[in-house]
């Protein structure tokens, strides 16, 4: 892959998978535009890295930020939507406000970033979008009804969006990771994580590199004929 000067936009880059992918793609020679609500915690002096603060669920902020990224780098080649939140709780005990926030970040944020980046990818008639779903979708885990529903929305959206942007030579795919040691699952009881791991074909926690590997496949030049697909990790 010819990475030099390829611009990858990564949301949720202040921690978790987004943070890992930011460092990973910088090492691979990409130009990375990291996006998150918080300041970047990344300790890098790399001139290939820029950080943009925004709330991905706010349309005006997404429009302005994506425009800024395009004008600064003269292109957007890849978008990886990692920004996500979880609130794992029994549905009967979940406030509507929590549902709004989870869908706003996980689904609406993914939609807005995909829509705006596609407008600029379209100019160069080439682009790769990878969204992050979750194995919580196919596993249908109790206590994750809202989170899984939001990630199911991400997968369905990605599959249909892929068809809509195909005429512009933009691909859109989805990766569904297993549990990984991140802040997202820090409050999930160990027994519950064990139950999830035991329901996988490959019975271990996920690693960041597992996610990066699947994303690598979707974004590489040779994958221009792969779109509208969701890869769930761990053998679900």
């Amino acid at each position, binding site marked *: 892959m010819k990475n030099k000067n390829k611009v990858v936009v990564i949301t949720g880059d202040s921690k978790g998978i987004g943070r890992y992918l930011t460092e990973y793609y910088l090492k691979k020679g990409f130009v990375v535009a990291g996006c998150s609500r918080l300041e970047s915690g990344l300790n890098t002096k790399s001139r290939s890295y820029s950080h943009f603060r925004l709330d991905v669920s706010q349309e005006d902020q997404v*429009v302005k930020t994506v*425009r800024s990224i395009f004008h600064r780098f003269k292109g957007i080649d890849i978008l990886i939507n990692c920004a996500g939140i979880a609130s794992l709780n029994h549905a009967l005990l979940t406030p509507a406000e929590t549902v709004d926030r989870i869908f706003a970040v996980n689904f609406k944020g993914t939609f807005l970033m995909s829509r705006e980046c596609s*407008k600029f990818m*379209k100019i160069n008639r080439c682009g790769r979008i990878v969204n992050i779903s979750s194995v919580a979708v196919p596993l249908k885990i109790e206590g994750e009804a809202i989170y899984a529903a939001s990630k199911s929305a991400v997968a369905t959206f990605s599959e249909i969006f892929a068809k809509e942007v195909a*005429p512009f030579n933009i691909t859109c795919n989805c990766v569904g990771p297993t549990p990984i040691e991140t802040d997202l699952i820090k409050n999930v009881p160990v027994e519950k994580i064990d139950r999830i791991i035991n329901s996988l074909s490959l019975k271990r926690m996920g690693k960041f590199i597992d996610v990066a590997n699947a994303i690598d496949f979707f974004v590489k030049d040779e994958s221009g004929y792969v779109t509208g697909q969701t890869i769930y990790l761990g053998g679900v």
Partner: protein
Amino acid sequence: MLSKDEIKKIVIKSIQEINLLLEKNKRLKIEKNMCLYGPGSNLDSIGLVNLLVDLEQRLYNEAGVSVSIMDSKAFSLKNSPFRNLDSLVNFIANIGKDK
């Protein structure tokens, strides 16, 4: 906000840009009250998306105007604002007024 004449000039630039993507015999003929989208036009739905995205970017780049043309109001109107050149220009001018 821009005058209708200024908006019209930008819309025409976008149409010219989109014409470059179309086969010669399918290009839109720029004339008064030209048909843009619907019966009598060669522009398909992807062509309309191309046109509106280009137009939004052009309005921002050339006039600093940030608008979302494809809002829900565009679909609720009895007559589509994308039917012809003048209806599109009027629609954009009214978005500016609403803001």
